[in-house]
């Protein structure tokens, strides 16, 4: 009791309390200001995409809403085909990555063989020198294979992901040895062991890698730009860049509608499964 009375009478304590409160207000204001700035580009794109072009720079609360921009964007370029291409691409890349990298990661995690350390070091090297920068040579390889301008060519350099091998190897190493031995005693073959014991336990890692891989390849631009040259193969990102740079006086509201079309599925997926996305990116990042 006494301490409270003393505090109340002590002006410096009151001042300190006020200072802490002010500190807190500044802190919260800063957090919100930053968040609003960070959302501004997206908010702006949504605003223009859902309003007639006349409201591109006029912000009125009761401006009429319209889906017209989306319809016009959708009809102005073969976005349906681009969508199909991108979906085929990310599905193909992820499937191939999971199969190839699971096999390789299992060998690195649980088998002994000569050259293991050297080979693993070479796998890790890919984390630094990615196929994305070896554009000229990989293009030459694709034209030697006769694969230029195919969806397969966009995905092929990414099938063997050093990153996936690394992540899965880490996960496989945590599988208890006893489980492994018990299955072997039961007469389980090597692939059976991998399929029945290791893969089920690595599902969270695979999900995490899957989200990272899908968003990476959905958004990838430079290599697809180089290797594709027709509507039948172009993914959304390349299609959008061509759509937005053709100088035919396309209105901003239509370009922004196209931008939202391109990012839409990933954005909606992210908003619905925010926690999984953030955890996946985190799990995938902290090696």
């Amino acid at each position, binding site marked *: 009791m006494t301490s409270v009375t003393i505090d109340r009478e002590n002006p410096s304590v009151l001042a300190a309390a006020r200072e802490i409160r002010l500190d807190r207000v500044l802190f919260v204001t800063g957090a919100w200001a930053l*968040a609003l700035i*960070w959302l501004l580009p*997206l908010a702006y794109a949504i605003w223009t995409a859902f309003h007639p072009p006349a409201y591109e720079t006029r912000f009125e609360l009761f401006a009429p809403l319209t889906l017209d921009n989306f319809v016009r964007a959708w009809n102005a370029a073969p976005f349906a085909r681009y969508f199909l291409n991108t979906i085929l691409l990310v599905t193909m890349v992820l499937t191939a990555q999971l199969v190839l990298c699971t*096999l390789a990661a299992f060998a690195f995690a649980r088998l002994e063989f000569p050259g293991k350390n050297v080979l693993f070091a070479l796998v890790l*090297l890919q984390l*630094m020198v990615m196929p994305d920068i070896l554009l*000229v040579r990989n293009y030459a*390889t694709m034209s030697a294979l006769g694969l230029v301008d195919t969806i397969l060519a966009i995905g092929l350099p990414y099938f063997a992901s050093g990153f996936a091998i690394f992540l899965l190897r880490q996960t496989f190493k945590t599988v208890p040895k006893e489980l492994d031995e018990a299955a072997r005693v039961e007469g389980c073959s090597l692939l059976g062991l991998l399929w029945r014991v290791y893969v089920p336990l690595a599902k969270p890692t695979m999900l995490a890698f899957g989200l990272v891989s899908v968003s990476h390849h959905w958004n990838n631009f430079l290599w697809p730009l180089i290797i594709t040259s027709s509507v039948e193969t172009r993914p959304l990102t390349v299609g959008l*860049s061509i759509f937005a740079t053709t100088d035919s006086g396309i209105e901003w509201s239509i370009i922004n509608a196209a931008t939202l079309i391109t990012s839409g599925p990933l954005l909606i997926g992210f908003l619905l499964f925010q926690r999984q996305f953030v955890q996946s990116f985190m799990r995938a*990042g902290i090696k």
Partner: protein
Amino acid sequence: MIKREWIHAWLLLLPALVLLFGFTHIPAVQTFIDSFWSTPRGRRPSTFVGWDNYARMTADPVFLRVMTNNLIYAAITIPASIAISLWMALFVHRRIMGLGFLRMAYFTPTVLPLIAVANIWLFFYLPGFGLFDQIRGLFGLRPVNWIGQPSTALYSITAVTVWNQAGFFMIFFLAALQTIPENLREAAALEGTSRWTFFWRVTWPLIMPTTLFVSVNATINAFRMVDHVFVMTQGGPNNASALLLYYIYDQGFRFWDTAYAATLTVVMVVILAIIGIGQFFLLDRRVHYR
């Protein structure tokens, strides 16, 4: 004697390693070899030219411009992204009004395609008409051609990069901050330590490994993130916003000067290798932290 286990292991590795070598290691070595040969043109085959491509590169004013640009780009994006992402993490790692919304707002740019958001930013930068100039107009300032003039083009690109990647780095800081024991904070509060002192004396040293990890990633990104350049400036005006990877693309696929593009790629690989070696030593020290 060859054991069964060895054969199994090699068979499991075979498909992944064939692709890995085929699209990463072999092209890297071939790129290095290509850099000592001339570009084949028409009926003229490629000939061995020794260090000619490298001599041309060091005398190429555009290359020097591009390297300078890329260094400025790195020198801004790395510290700015770290500072902003750390602020974000500090904002949202404990209870705050609208926590879920704030986290969503910070992280969202990360999942958007850089090429797509570049369109939105392009509009923000429009002279006179765009958002920035409208705000400047409120204060009676003249419109600025942000991406159309050499003095601001690179910085306009840089801002987009920081905006795009800060939310991604935030989650690593967030994870690091959650590991700081709560009793340290309570002890500091009892001692009457200010937030500022607590941050520099306790938080900052404890999250150092994460800061190093984020720095390495930000450095790699500073050489890899060029998508928005294609939409916003195409490296212009007058190469003011061209970056190394963009220049490689330009030489390799617009001028089809593959030998010179290979030489530029060697520079890129060397830079990434240096970062890789740096990371190895930094992460090595990280082990001793524990």
